């Protein structure tokens, strides 16, 4: 991976990916997994697909920019600041872990995605502890981590499909 140049095309690409991530977040909010799995904060993490994609296609910096834009705009749309803390901490943790895991070249997209999903839940848990001011919510973490194995595999699968479909397309220069 070489550093992405901030050409007009690439900035536009970031904007499209941000919009896509926001769209996916909205989509999964319409079909909450928490109805099936009664845990607070359970999510499919579809927006994570965009993060994974951006991380590999564009690099860490653009992926972070997209993440910040997605969290900021998302909480603006939802109209609440505590949601910003949740999505930001979750997203940042996922991002940092995935940047790290990406360096293990032997890991496939699944490993990276699972690590990101687990880290996302840990970040959200930290946000919950900060907001609620007590650590009782930690009791949910083991279950959330278990769920993140499934959601991480799922988003990894979708991302793999995506990369396969785009095997001969190069987006950034």
């Amino acid at each position: 991976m070489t550093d992405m140049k901030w050409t007009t095309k690439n900035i536009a690409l970031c904007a499209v990916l941000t919009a896509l991530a926001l769209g996916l977040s909205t989509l999964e909010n319409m079909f909450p997994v928490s109805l099936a799995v009664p845990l607070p904060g359970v999510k499919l993490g579809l927006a994570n697909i965009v993060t994974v994609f951006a991380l590999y296609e564009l690099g860490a910096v653009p992926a972070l920019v997209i993440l910040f834009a997605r969290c900021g705009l998302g909480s603006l749309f939802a109209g609440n600041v505590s949601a910003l803390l949740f999505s930001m901490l979750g997203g940042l943790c996922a991002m940092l872990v995935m940047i790290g895991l990406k360096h293990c070249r032997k890991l496939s997209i699944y490993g990276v995605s699972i690590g990101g999903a687990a880290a996302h839940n840990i970040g959200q848990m930290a946000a919950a502890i900060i907001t609620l001011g007590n650590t009782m919510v930690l009791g949910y973490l083991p279950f959330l981590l278990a769920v993140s194995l499934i959601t991480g595999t799922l988003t990894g699968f979708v991302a793999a499909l995506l990369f396969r479909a785009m095997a001969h397309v190069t987006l950034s220069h």
Partner: protein
Amino acid sequence: MSTNPSRPELKWNRYDAIVATLVVLLAVAVALWFYLPKLQSGETTVVISAGGQETERVRLSDFSGTTVTCNGYTLQIDADGDGVWVSHSDCPTQDCVHTGHITRAGQSIVCLPAQIIIHLEGAANDGPDVIVG
């Protein structure tokens, strides 16, 4: 057009399994750290203190009674596995004897003259945190 060299492996492999295992291990570790203490304290415990010092801490089911002397007074404490009571005391007020049986976590028998407290401790229960009156 060529494939982007930074693109990831797309097939599940054994290194992914390591990441998955680590996540499972972390989940188990957090679960143990969080839930184990609660399970261990699940049983009702008899705690006796005299003159501000804890003198005995036994599971209610293992407790068969004892005699405690403090401040010049002696209390005979009896138990039957379900509850604890003071069967005899040479203290002047006899409040401890009159308190009768205590059976639930959170309850206590207090003997003011002897400065002896018999308290039932337990896990998270529906009982009150503090009793006034």
